[in-house]
């Protein structure tokens, strides 16, 4: 499949992508073949269902939310094509040295992605409802709504410094100062 994929990927596209994202050609090809594998109907884009077919994503508590983010923010019309796909993943490439960081895989953009996981209405704030949704997904269904609400309030209380009962991106970043978000939000791409 790997050889197949490389044929289908135009050479200049490949170079373009490599240059923009910082992936090596091999990595791009590998991701392309992965893309093709996921794209079962062979129509050049992935849909929500395609991604949900991956068992780990399916059972992951945040899987659907992640796909929401992917589809809404990175794809269009509930589809994501390869270029969008690879730009999405470029965010999580680890910048080994300073020179290899592109506009995609800065710490800021990683945090932004994380922030977007909460902020679904794109008002640049995480409000209580959004936090509640995420909490419910992560903690599971057996817990009482009140309890979730308490946790949500607590969390907002921790982060919220300007007192508007919602979390802005700056406030969000502040908590993550101590966490090595850059490392944790990176992954190894096979080449």
């Amino acid at each position: 499949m790997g050889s197949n994929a490389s044929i289908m990927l135009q050479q200049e596209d490949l170079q373009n992508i490599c240059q923009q994202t910082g992936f090596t050609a091999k990595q791009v090809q590998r991701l392309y073949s992965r893309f093709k594998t996921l794209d079962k109907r062979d129509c050049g884009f992935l849909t929500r269902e395609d991604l949900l077919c991956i068992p780990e994503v399916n059972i992951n508590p945040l899987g659907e939310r992640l796909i929401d983010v992917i589809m809404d923010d990175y794809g269009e019309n509930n589809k994501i094509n390869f270029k969008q796909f690879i730009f999405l993943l470029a965010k999580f490439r680890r910048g080994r040295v300073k020179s290899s960081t592109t506009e995609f895989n800065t710490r800021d953009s990683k945090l932004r992605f994380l922030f977007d996981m909460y902020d679904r209405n794109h008002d640049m704030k995480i409000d209580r409802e959004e936090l509640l949704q995420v909490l419910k997904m992560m903690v599971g269904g057996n817990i009482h709504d009140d309890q979730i609400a308490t946790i949500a309030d607590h969390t907002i209380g921790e982060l919220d410094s300007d007192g508007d009962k919602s979390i802005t991106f700056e406030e969000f970043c502040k908590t993550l100062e101590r966490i090595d978000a850059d490392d944790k939000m990176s992954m190894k791409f096979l080449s």
Partner: protein
Amino acid sequence: MYQNKHSIFLIILLGFIIHKYYCKEQTYEHKPNKPLRFHVAEFNFDHVSDVYAITLWILLGSLAKIGFHLSHRLTEKFPESCLLIILGLIVGGLLYVTHLTEQKAYVLNSDTFFLFLLPPIILEAGYFMPNRPFFDNLGTILLLAIVNTLFNTICIGLTLWGFQFTPLYGGTQFEMLPCLVFAALISAVDPVAVLATFSEIHVNDMLYIVVFGESLLNDAVSVVLYRMFASFANIGQPNIIVMDIVLGCLSFFVVALGGVLIGIIFGVIGCFTTKFTEHTPVLEPLIVLVYAYLAYLTSEMVSVSGILAITFCGMVMKQYVSFNISKKSDATTEYVLKMLSSIMETIIFMFMGLSTVSDSHSWNTGFVFMTILLCLVFRVIGIAIFANIANCWRLLELTRIDMLIMSYGGLRGAIAFALALVLDEAKIARKKEFVTATIAVVFFTVFIQGITIGPLVKLLNVRRKQIEEPTMSAKLTNRMMDHVMTCLEEISGSGGSNSLRDRVRNLDRNYFKRWLLREPPDRKDIKLLQTFKKINTLTAMRVHDTARGLVPSASTATVQQGIPEHHHLRSHSAYGNVSELIAANLPENTVPDLMSYENHEGEHHHNDAEMHHFLDTNLYSARPRAAIHLRNQDETGSSDDGTHARFEKSYHHRDQRYLPTRLERELPHGPKTISKTIHNANRPIGLTNSSPKHTRSPPTTHQQPNPRSRSRSIAAHQHSPIPSGQRTKSISKDSRISPLASTHIENEGTGRTAAERSRPWRHLSITEETGASSSKTANIPLANGNDPNLHHIPLTVADFGGTYTKSPEYMGEYATTTKPEEPSSRPDVRDIFNKQSEDVSEQQDDGSTESITRL
């Protein structure tokens, strides 16, 4: 006369009895030739000598440790291990001079070392192993532990042997196999030394775990190599066939995997046992210790790696046991482990110094020098090679500086020494040289490297360990990152460590937790909830720490409202805010931010109620606990008591165990001052309201009849009550004004003024207040009778300190208001007291009764 006769008879009788028993004594003693007398006390040292010596050692070690830490100058410059070795050397010298060294108990023998001294240290290390960094770096650790150790052994052994052809050793002959045996014991990094050194320099988790993990896991390799080469030496070099070497390699897997397996098995059994200890909680810590020790002994028995066994046993148990056993047992386990390992470490280092002073040395300058040099050189080379190899797959690469610290942190220690001591002199002729060289290497690494590694870390600006408080948001986001990265790894098809971790986590949740926990988790993310509980408890502790008087009055307010309200459960934000504010105003040293606190509190009623409810249903409710400070809580009803008891218990813990250092205590001025002001403001209400019939006493002293706004009432002249939806906003708004307001209230107590006359209950607080805040100079009359909060006197730390010293009395005072009037609820509280028999609770009781009589 008659009486005299009687007494004479009595004396005779007594004499007869004594005589008879005397005879018996004589027959027992079998010493007919020496007339024996009864001894009131006998001196029988032989009977206890061994244990006595050991106990003395422990005492000496503890005293030494205490002594070293009294002098900060000493411990800043030298690691503890160095000081202990020096002490050992001194004592050893004394013993050597007095020829006491011949007695066994005074020197380190390898049996004592491996059976008693080593296991607690390793268990502690395993039990407190930071799991996540460990498994994240497992690949690197294994590579270093196995391949690097092998590499080091072979290289050092062969090079040492090779140098015998040069005149460097002064003509002393070393055979190849003994050299390899020696290399096997000398090339393994020592966990004890690494722990002792790295715990003082606080490098980041990753670096620490890589070095420490290596030192733990290389035990399997070094045990195998040591045993293999030793038995090869026994067999004799010419007789070795290929089969022996193959079997040696095979035995590595047996030793390593066998050790891990035994550890895990015993760990699982241990967890399983704690599932049923609900009624015998006192045994819980013991179970942890015993199973771990058993794992160690078992694996030593079947000659697999005991260190691996006990490490993994500790790691497994930590995962599940802490869910099962009670909080107290958990704390005890941790404490006992820390205590044991710390004292064992002390003794090991002391013994090392001690055993150095003996006759069994043979100094060979060339050999010693070469050994030290080769250890250093090959350590650096090995790390350079294997860290670079590891970097090929590592996400977070090891930098040059990391590598330098890793190689510099390769300390040798007591294990090598103990292994050198057990060498068989009949087979290995150069044992004395080896022992001497081992000691030299150990001393070199512990002294030179141990002392310089701290400054080196500072110099190279190595990323330090960050001690972070658990916050809900961080935990949540962390967990979210895990989930997101797992998904993305799956999507991108690059199945990395995240998805692996996810699989392990699923397995753990679906099977192990179900089998091993008392209450199988029914939630998806038990850890997230746990964090929340932990944060809440921490907050509670802090509140309690800063404001002991707060609790009763708070709950009296609760009675009024009929809502269970808890100040301890307040969200963290109050503190964040206050401390920020304090930080901004620290130079002036005067910023009690009452307003934010008060407002917060006011609007938090519902929130707190919810939180309380949540905790009530979700906190571990193994069984009722002793209610120590339970006073006014009695009124709030039975459901309330449980939670409170739990919190009070944790306070109690804090008082006893987690007493922060002075600095920490004084740092958060904000909460402390606030709590005091609150305390002052609230207490009156608490007093007036805790009337026998639980009726709400008319709020005579306040304009607002609604008790819900009580907390705000003080600030009322400046702020109208803010709708609860905006509570957080109000903090920041108030923070500018609040210092003034709070200072007013602070002084309120001191002013004997109109306020006092209008509020007779205030009298009480005044008497105490004036005593407490001795630094305050003036009692300024109040300008405004309605609102006694108009004085600007900067507060000092001493003021706040006053509250601390006074607080027991406060508690007593509260007790008087409620205790006699609560005959119905009192008994069951007493029951709990009796059950747990806490001396502190008794103390508290005493205090309360005292105050009853006082009033």
